[in-house]
């Protein structure tokens, strides 16, 4: 029975329609492994080969990959949650109750989204400290470090804008405190706060702005900067592994 399953898989793979979609075919040779990366629009952001030493756990603790993993979980759960959430006052709070008690798997998705968000903030800080302590910010990787700082700020902003969306006491007052801190910026503070909230108080306008920031603007920014971040890793010579042979290469 196992053999017929294999035969079935092979038949599918040799099928004309399949081959028109997946043109490189499969195989164990280095050529096939190269094509798998190089011919894929998403994967060809990565280099075909990687230095073996960079794959050790002790090198990076995989913190960058883990941060990206939490980001993916957040995007998926976030989009699903958006289907039951109306960013209006006070409907937003009613929708939170809806998700907890009425919607199938609603409580699970909400929990997963919340805990992944905390995990992502923690992991992005851990990633930054790990990169610093192993000196992976030095030439030629300075600019990628700055991209990383930008991503740190985007992550914190994503978390902060998402925090308001449940429209409960915790959310409302956390954002009130935060917006008052923003108004403390000299000269422009009040203006910044006004633009941030879409008004002078934390109300329906603020909720809508934070919703658009959280679901559209900031995720787009994050995806763009993540792409540049990955690209720069490759162009700066791959993951830093504490040696000198990793200076910029043409990989």
């Amino acid at each position: 029975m196992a053999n017929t399953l294999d035969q079935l898989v092979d038949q599918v793979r040799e099928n004309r329609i399949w081959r028109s979609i997946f043109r490189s075919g499969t195989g164990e040779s280095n050529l096939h492994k190269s094509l798998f990366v190089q011919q894929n629009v998403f994967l060809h952001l990565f280099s075909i080969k990687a230095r073996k030493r960079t794959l050790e756990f002790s090198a990076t603790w995989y913190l960058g990959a883990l941060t990206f993993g939490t980001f993916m979980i957040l995007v998926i759960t976030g989009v699903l949650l958006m289907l039951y959430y109306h960013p209006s006052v006070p409907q937003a709070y009613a929708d939170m109750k809806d998700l907890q008690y009425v919607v199938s798997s609603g409580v699970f998705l909400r929990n997963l989204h919340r805990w992944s968000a905390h995990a992502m903030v923690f992991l992005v800080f851990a990633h930054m400290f790990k990169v610093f302590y192993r000196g992976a910010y030095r030439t030629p990787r300075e600019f990628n470090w700055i991209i990383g700082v930008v991503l740190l700020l985007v992550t914190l902003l994503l978390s902060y804008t998402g925090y308001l969306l449940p429209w409960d006491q915790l959310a409302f007052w956390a954002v009130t405190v935060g917006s008052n801190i923003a108004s403390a910026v000299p000269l422009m503070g009040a203006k910044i706060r006004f633009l941030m909230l879409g008004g002078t108080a934390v109300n329906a306008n603020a909720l809508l702005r934070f919703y658009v920031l959280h679901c559209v603007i900031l995720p787009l920014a994050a995806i763009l900067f993540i792409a540049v971040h990955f690209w720069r890793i490759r162009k700066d010579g791959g993951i830093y592994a504490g040696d000198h042979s990793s200076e910029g290469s043409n990989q």
Partner: protein
Amino acid sequence: MPEDVKPKPSPDSPEEMSRRQFFVKLGVGSVAVAALGTAAFSYEYLSPNVLYEPSPVVDAGKPDRYAPDSVTLDPQTAIYVVRTGEGFFALSAICTHLGCLTAYKPDLGIIACPCHGSKFNKDGVKIEGPAPRPLPWLRMWLSDEGNLMVDRANAIAIRQLVRV
């Protein structure tokens, strides 16, 4: 020289499988099970359990409101309450062609749809036009308070009249 990491070809006897093949099958099987589970739960998540829409059951009021031999349209709930000599029945006012709201023409004694010209008689039977089916009869009953109740979600096949 390609780095061949192909597993050793499986021997002829079907019971033997290399350790790698076993784990590959185990992995693929687990992923398949997880995918099926995810699909099932996703379907459940995406279909709402509670709808925030008006109830299909309509309270059409007391039977005396309706004149004998009349056809009364309620545009908000899209039903006709029809009173004949023998009793009451309810028709859906939504044209079976493409969903427009029909209207009763008292001078002609027919129900007409403004969109594509379908015409129905007072029993809902189609006279002319592109509508594929007659206007459905809706389940009607008398409530405990003596009100006519119509359930828009339940059509009845047999012509039943509510006699008052």
